[in-house]
């Protein structure tokens, strides 16, 4: 699925590991709008990215970071933020 690219305020979304496979991409540019939270962003992504990815993000365990800092689903987003959806870790 092709990335959505606009010249307006945007959020950069990153996917890793299993999530990148489900998304068929490791990054996606989403339109930013006022009072946006991570949860609202996920709703906006629904229908634009593969349903398997959306289902995983809604129903399975994943964490979120905003600008490389761990965050919560209801945290507010700013224009040009970098959001990453993080599946369970397995380093070491």
């Amino acid at each position: 699925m092709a990335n959505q690219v606009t010249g307006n305020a945007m959020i950069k979304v990153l996917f890793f590991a299993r999530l990148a496979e489900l998304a068929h991409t490791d990054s996606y540019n989403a339109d930013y709008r006022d009072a946006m939270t991570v949860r609202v962003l996920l709703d906006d992504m629904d229908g634009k990215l593969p349903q398997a990815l959306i289902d995983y993000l809604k129903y399975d365990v994943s964490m979120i970071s905003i600008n490389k800092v761990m965050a919560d689903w209801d945290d507010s987003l700013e224009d040009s933020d970098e959001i990453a959806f993080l599946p369970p870790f397995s380093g070491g």
Partner: protein
Amino acid sequence: MSDTVVGEVRIQEQDFDLAQEYRELQLRSPQAGAIVFFVGLVRDLYERPSTSGLEAIAENEPGRSGKSGKSGESGESGESGESGESGQIDYIELSHYAGMTEAMCEQIVAEAKQRCDIDAVQIVHRVGKLYAGDQIVFVAVASRHRDEAFLASQFIMDYLKTRATIWKKEVGTRGQKWLGVKDKDEYAAKRWIK
């Protein structure tokens, strides 16, 4: 307790040399009376499937792999109910979130410093495609006292496995499978919670 801990964190594809890493840490910690290090290696068998982790449920959920469109994932559904480590891996593939992984490791080192009297830490974690017997991770801690070095190295490894933005995929005779946090690793990390 030491005022400052010199921590070096490297995430890299290339292999590391144990003697060189040891010497570098020794040079950075002239006051140390002990250096403890741990090396993680790639095993040639699949990790034991988690019996309660949501990751395992996701792996085996009917229709999940079909939606993904990844042909290799279709083999995962056969793992449900398996209790052992049958099947050999061809290789593992490690990926990470560049920039955040290093930051998370630095946080882990800082927390280790708060808990233990340590002088310096060296962490090297490899990413990319690795084969059985390959070195994955190197964690070394220098301290004036060996018990503090042992304790800190164990803490760092427990947190590295459960807190750092690193992901591992096994590829082998049973297809491919992304690993999640294992129950025993989560348990090991939780014992440090104050």
